[in-house]
């Protein structure tokens, strides 16, 4: 990676631009839920935006993403049209999956969003298959599979990382270590100090990297290297990004199991607040410009929500459609 591009003020601005977009949509949807204009199980990505931003900036549209129920940030960062995401949250015929999948199963191949899974750990074995196909076709695509710290304790994680290393697949295992799996702390469920320590179980083909996922430069650089490694055929990476779930496990989570001071510290370190100052200090964008972005994102979201609320519900026949393809 000699000619690797270094992190610049422009990259910092780009990171923040994407992260702010995600936060605006996240807050907007939670607002809808609070207002009772929407009712569903939502797993907010609040506080984890920088990780998705770095991924989005380093991936091509043709690269593959496999993510999880807590996937809003990933889907938006990968470039999914906002109205398709919002439409799916609202369960309308105009949603990405016609309202049949819902937030936990958002799919949009045109943006490379291949699978969103609600089952912990299940995306990783599937990501290997996408990588295998790229290896066969030689299409140079990279597959990123997102998961959490708790998912690193399930069997699928182990089987997937071992196979990826043995086959030297172009897959990045992107772990958002947000310190909790539902209400259980990292330490109460996970025997090793860092998730990245587990790369040692998969030999030299598997790179293991652990960074502060809320630090734009750190996660941007780690993602750059992991993508370069995968694209060049050098092998998979287990990339652990430390972060925090600022809105808890699901919308409505009272977070009673999170110590007050831990939450307070995390809120104080909210990357959307912190990085905003960095961007301005670096002269990458002015406060006014940033407010302008936010206003623009808000407008886009409002339009998407309006469109979704005006859109038709899926036809009842849809229940029995897409179960099988047209008889072969």
């Amino acid at each position, binding site marked *: 990676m000699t000619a690797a591009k270094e992190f610049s003020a422009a990259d910092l601005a780009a990171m923040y631009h994407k992260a702010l977009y995600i936060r605006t949509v996240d807050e907007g949807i939670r607002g809808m839920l609070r207002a009772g204009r929407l009712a569903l199980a939502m797993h907010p990505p609040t506080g984890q935006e920088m990780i998705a931003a770095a991924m989005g900036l380093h991936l091509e549209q043709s690269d593959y993403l496999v993510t999880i129920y807590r996937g809003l940030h990933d889907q938006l960062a990968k470039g999914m049209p906002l109205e398709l995401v919002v439409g799916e949250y609202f*369960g309308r015929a105009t949603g990405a999956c016609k*309202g*049949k999948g*819902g937030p936990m*199963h958002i799919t949009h191949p045109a943006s490379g969003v291949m699978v969103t899974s609600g089952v912990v750990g299940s995306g990783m074995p599937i990501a290997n298959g996408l990588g295998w196909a790229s290896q066969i076709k030689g299409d140079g695509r990279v597959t990123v599979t997102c998961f959490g710290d708790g998912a690193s*304790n399930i069997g699928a994680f182990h089987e997937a990382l071992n196979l990826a290393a043995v086959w030297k697949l172009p897959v990045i295992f992107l772990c958002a270590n947000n310190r909790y799996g539902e209400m259980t702390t990292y330490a109460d469920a996970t025997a090793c100090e860092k998730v990245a320590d587990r790369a040692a179980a998969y030999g030299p083909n598997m790179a293991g990297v652990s960074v502060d996922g809320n630090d734009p430069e750190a996660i941007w650089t780690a993602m750059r290297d992991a993508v370069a490694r995968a694209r060049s055929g050098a092998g998979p990476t287990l990339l652990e990004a430390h972060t925090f779930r600022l809105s808890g496990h699901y919308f409505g989570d009272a977070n009673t*199991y999170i110590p007050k001071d831990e939450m307070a510290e995390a809120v104080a370190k909210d990357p959307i607040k912190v990085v905003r100052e960095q961007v301005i200090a670096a002269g990458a964008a002015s406060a006014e410009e940033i407010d302008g972005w936010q206003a623009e994102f808000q407008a886009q979201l409002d339009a998407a929500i309006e469109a979704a609320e005006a859109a038709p519900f899926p036809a009842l026949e849809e229940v029995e459609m897409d179960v099988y393809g047209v008889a072969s």
Partner: protein
Amino acid sequence: MSEEKMITFTEAYTRALDEAMAADPTVLLLGEDIGDKQGGGVFKVTAGLEGKFGSERVRTTPISEQAIIGAAIGASLAGMRPVAEIMFMNFITGAMDQIVNHAAKLRFMSGGLTSVPITIRTRTGAGTGNGGQHSDMLEAWFAHVPGIKVVVPSSPAEAVGLLRACIEDDDPCLFIEDGVTRVVKGAAPPPDYKIPLGKAHVEREGSDVTVISYGRPLADIRKLADQFAEEGVSVEVVDIRTISPLDVDTIVKSVCKTGRAVIAHEAVRSFGVGAEIAAQIQEHAFSSLKAPVKRVASKDSTVPFARVLENHFIYQPSDIELSIRQVLEGK
């Protein structure tokens, strides 16, 4: 049953676990987020039990369904009676090897030298808006595996009595909780209430048609039975309670009397529990049948996210009513 006090399904599960742990020190709990530090599970069923019975007996686990069931099996081989929680039934797919190849078979394969007295509690059901990976009713799979018992309660009182019975049973039991009705209330049973496994319950006697079900649809069926009574149609209601081993005798006896049968369940129709019940009825009550046995079930599809679709996916009480009318007409 004392009619005074009413409890929800969730309170019923908690009470059964509490009573069982107090009555028998070998009863253990394990599962994701079940401890006090985690608030007693996402559905709060185990809230307070770790504090009451200690951290040795109540263990929060990593997200590792195979390890959860394996640990339950191993502890049971050493004389314990573990109760494992699998948060949603769709996640039991991760533990099928432990359940099917081991829990259900160790007694047989050891020639009776060992047994696996574990209870697996899990929760599921469409209607929660959680979509395709959190709502499946997979009880038919386990009913097709000799060696494990499959139990579904249809009231809080049954929940207490059947869960206690599962925990005391010397074989592995799968106890399925409904995610939609968990705050529904029913009469609280007396202390130390237990209901024998393997026995269907004729909860309402009738002479014109037998409606057979388990779990959630019974609430609809009870209403329909009253409604039909007003029309002068006498409906016999059989709550099978234990899906496997199935109490065929009670079902057949009822249908031989009424000559008509409707089966209702929430699981998708094809190859579901209703198929076995219908097959048994037509085989053993053939000459008594005045109409084909009808099955009411959810559609053969994946549970959809959008509410309009999810509601359309699920079996409809009106389907049960229609089926009853059809069999009454001999159709």
